[in-house]
């Protein structure tokens, strides 16, 4: 396996306060990599910088051997990195079908003239998009909403729409920003199953999440951030056993011990 995404020494400060202080990691092609850490540890800043939504102060981002550091978000998406957002973002006034069609229209060759004249190029592009969309919609179980405005869906279903849209153009890597935050437990298991099955089919994911259980059961590799630095990196089992990670999440070991004492008392 080789690294599809290579992040070197990311630096970002807001008004002198350091949000990212030299973070480096790599995501292997075909893997699911998790990025966890307490609130304010720099997870969201890191993926905003990687996907071009925030300017970096320093560091390099390499996607499949192409340096994408400092490029605009739409160029990074065209280079093969798509993403979802923490607060779910979809086009609520468009149908599920249109939501997915837009996600891939930049990647097909059909122009407005093609569309106006209904040329073969246009018809083929639409047919290809539709078949990919049907596939993803079936995977996330939203078939019955195909022609319906996505505004009527539940919050969890909207997250699935956002996930499907990010996968539409067959990107090299998909970055998911808190895919299960605010989603009910049944739906979380569905999302987990969908991601695992997509990964078996070859998709690469980088997932930012608070839900440690979700991350450790799904990810091949986990990176832990704390206060803008990388605290630990390893397999799920290694991370589970790492006392520094426990401290970062739950407080110092003595505080944990004290809490356990209170719980047993």
């Amino acid at each position, binding site marked *: 396996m080789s690294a599809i995404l290579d992040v070197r020494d990311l630096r970002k400060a807001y008004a002198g306060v350091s949000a990212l202080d030299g973070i480096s990691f790599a995501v292997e092609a075909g893997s699911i990599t998790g990025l966890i850490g307490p609130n304010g540890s720099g997870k969201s800043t890191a993926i905003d910088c990687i*996907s071009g*939504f925030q300017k970096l102060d320093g560091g390099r981002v390499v996607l499949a051997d192409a340096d994408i550091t400092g490029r*605009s*978000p*739409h*160029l990074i*998406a*065209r280079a093969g990195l*798509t*993403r979802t*957002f923490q607060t779910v*973002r*979809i*086009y*609520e*006034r*468009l149908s599920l079908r*249109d939501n997915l*069609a*837009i*996600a*891939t*229209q*930049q*990647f097909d060759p059909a122009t*407005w003239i093609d*569309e*106006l004249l209904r040329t073969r190029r246009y018809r083929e592009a639409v047919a290809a998009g539709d078949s990919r969309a049907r596939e993803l919609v079936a995977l996330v179980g939203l078939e*019955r*909403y195909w022609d*319906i*405005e996505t*505004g*009527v869906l539940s919050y969890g279903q909207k997250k699935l729409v956002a996930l499907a*849209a*990010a996968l539409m*153009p067959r990107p090299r890597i998909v970055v998911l920003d808190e895919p299960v935050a605010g989603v009910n437990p049944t739906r979380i298991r569905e999302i987990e199953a969908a991601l695992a099955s997509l990964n078996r089919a070859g998709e690469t994911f980088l997932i930012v999440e608070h839900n440690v259980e979700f991350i450790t059961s799904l990810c091949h590799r986990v990176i832990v951030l704390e206060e803008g630095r990388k605290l630990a990196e390893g397999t799920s089992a290694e991370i589970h056993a790492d006392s520094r990670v426990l401290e970062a999440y739950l407080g110092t070991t003595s505080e944990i011990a004290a809490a356990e004492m209170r719980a047993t008392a």
Partner: protein
Amino acid sequence: MRQLALALVVALAFAALPLLTTSNYIVGVGVSALIFTVAAAALNLIYGYTGLLSFAQLGFWGVGGYASALTVVSFGGSFWWGVIWAAAINAMLAILIGFPMLRTSRHAFVIGSLTFALLATLVARDWVDLTRGPLGIPNLPPPSAFGIAFDTTAKFYWIAWAFSVAMLALLYALCSSRIGRTLIAIRQNEDLVRAQGISPTPYKLSAFTISAAVTGAAGGVYSFHLGIIDPTFLDFYYMQTFLIIVIIGGTGSFWGVLASGIVLSALPEALRFSADFRMIIYGAILVLAMFVMPGGVAGWFRDRAIARQREALG
């Protein structure tokens, strides 16, 4: 397809208006209804679809009116060239002012567009050498083509009709395509659009430019309907009319704006039975419409459709 067939039938029915009445007054109202509907549809492209509230439309309307009048009166061109210049000059202006304005926030865009409209008003009034100032340019000659002079209201109606059908067809081809869909997406969530590999700026600038060119051409045709152009051509009344048509029709709905354009242009005239109260009644109808249908006519139908879908899904 059924929508387009219906639109064709309605368009042909409108073409017949001068054959149905000999009243110049009614045909004149028909000309206004057609031209205002085109300007409103152009505003709908930038405001309804793209989500950018542009008061610059008033400036484009005025610049278009003056451009076509001056082409004929000062530069010896024909009416047809006047309309083409009206569109071209406005397209260039839109690119020039749109490029910096679209880099700012949506709120700053509104203010910037308003400033442009006010500036255009000042130019019309104070650049006397070019526009002849408050006196205006009277006695615009009627257009002619193939040896036929369109010198009556009824004949001019055909020009307004053909122009409107062509412009509305162009706007429909845009709005109903992927481009229209992308504009709606930009209005709803610009960051998501960017995350999907689409750069919003060219779309927004194109929508603004096309909207400006169509509005300018509409102003160019309308000034020859009036036969005179002066600074009152840039009265805020026009902007207000276009905006009311778009809001009552339903922002972002092509057919809703079309229907409301025809109805609302004719309504103040239909209320003339009560000369004293007609504008009060007109106002009351507008207020009532907004109470009952805050999303416009199209929004009202849409809400019903969504409620039905929800029910069907259980």
